[in-house]
């Protein structure tokens, strides 16, 4: 047993999980930004914006994340020569964040839209009736209530994002699933112990997010 624990230290498993958390944080931030813009586009009165938002969501949401990751690294970086950092490792990390952000933005957008559906249409009508233009009405009246109604689906998206951050291995980022693969490859005697360790690692990270979003969604619910 102590030999196995030494192995975990030797391969710095804790740091590997830390990389997943960093990917999740920055990817989530990017997804929240893009997703909010997409959601505003999809509820806007302009047909062209609605169309563009819907196209993005349907295109990205229905593409496997691995395909997006590989596309970013092999096509955007290797072929088109776009770099996101001068540092080799950071470059891969940033591409992984970009892939995670771009992909999950589609889900964030749909979560926010489900939140918008919890806001009675009269709220937007009243905002327009006092003379607020569309963007101001969205920013001051509709979106704040929509976010509060979308805490649970946003939390689910965040959980999916944390688990999907393992796909960053496809963009050559040294994170937990990559470390797991290396461990199994070089220490096949410990196969099931390694697997259980990484499974528990993710469960330990995911459960608090679930609990926090449930608590927050109750606490923030708008009383009508």
């Amino acid at each position, binding site marked *: 047993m102590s030999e196995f624990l030494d192995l975990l230290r030797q391969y710095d498993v804790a740091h590997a999980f830390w990389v997943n958390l960093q990917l999740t944080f920055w990817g989530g931030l990017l997804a929240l930004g893009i997703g909010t813009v997409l959601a505003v586009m999809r509820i806007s009165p302009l047909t062209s914006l609605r169309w563009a938002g819907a196209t993005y969501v349907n295109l990205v949401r229905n593409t496997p994340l691995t395909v997006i990751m590989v596309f970013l690294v092999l096509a955007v970086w290797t072929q088109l020569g776009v770099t996101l950092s001068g540092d080799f490792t950071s470059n891969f990390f940033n591409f992984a964040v970009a892939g995670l952000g771009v992909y999950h933005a589609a889900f964030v957008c749909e979560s926010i839209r489900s939140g918008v559906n919890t806001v009675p249409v009269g709220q937007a009508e009243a905002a327009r009736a006092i*003379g607020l233009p569309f963007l101001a009405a969205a920013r001051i009246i509709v979106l704040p209530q929509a976010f509060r109604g979308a805490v649970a689906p946003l939390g689910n998206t965040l959980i999916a994002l944390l688990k999907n951050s393992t796909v960053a291995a496809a963009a050559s980022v040294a994170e937990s699933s990559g470390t797991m693969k290396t461990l199994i490859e070089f220490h096949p005697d410990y196969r099931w112990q390694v697997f259980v360790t990484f499974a528990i690692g993710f469960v330990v990270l995911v459960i608090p997010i679930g609990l926090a979003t449930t608590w927050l969604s109750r606490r923030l619910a708008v009383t009508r």
Partner: protein
Amino acid sequence: MEASAPALVELTDVNKHFGDLHVLRDINLTVRRGEVLVVIGPSGSGKSTLCRAINRLETIDSGTITVDGKPVPAEGKALAHLRADVGMVFQSFNLFAHKTVLDNVTLGPRKVRKAAKKDAEEAARTLLRRVGVEDQARKLPAQLSGGQQQRVAIARALAMQPKVMMFDEPTSALDPEMVQEVLDAMVALAKEGMTMIVVTHEMGFARKAADRVVFMADGQIVEQADPDTFFTAPTSARAKDFLSKILVH
């Protein structure tokens, strides 16, 4: 209200369809400055749509609507400016659920009229006092009764210093014991000379405060007269039928 007062809201040959349903048929209507116009009629007669079309919460298919001499703009900043001048009170109050009563009333003046916070709050408190809910200023709408919420909604609309106030069945969603407090606020407003367009089933209000009653049925204006004439001697069969049904009990 003087008969010679200038027109404030004018609808000319307005038509609107909801799919196959012709909800507004060749509506021609002029509301003069200071006039209190009550629109009554059976459900589905188009009276709410008429009200909502004036600040373009509903679009129209043909015809023109002007407010204070200017056609209602189709969209954008110009439309937002027009809406700021047209107060609207909804059947379901529609107070901003995540904002306090005071914030509900100050939001328009601050964000649209760019008033200073202090001035907006002072004006808001005066308005809330006028409608009798000043002590609720720090509460959220859900903590108020329906009647209180609707009075806050009236204060919110008045805070924009509108040229005309529109009421879309303002008492229909209220418990019976709360109807009077809202009607009292509206009567007071009418006495102050506010131009009002009121869609309502409250015949008492129409009798007490209206300068003119417009009766709508099937998307058309069937009859219009001063309240006394309308309630005692309606001319059209549709109006007679409607009044016999609502005034019997």
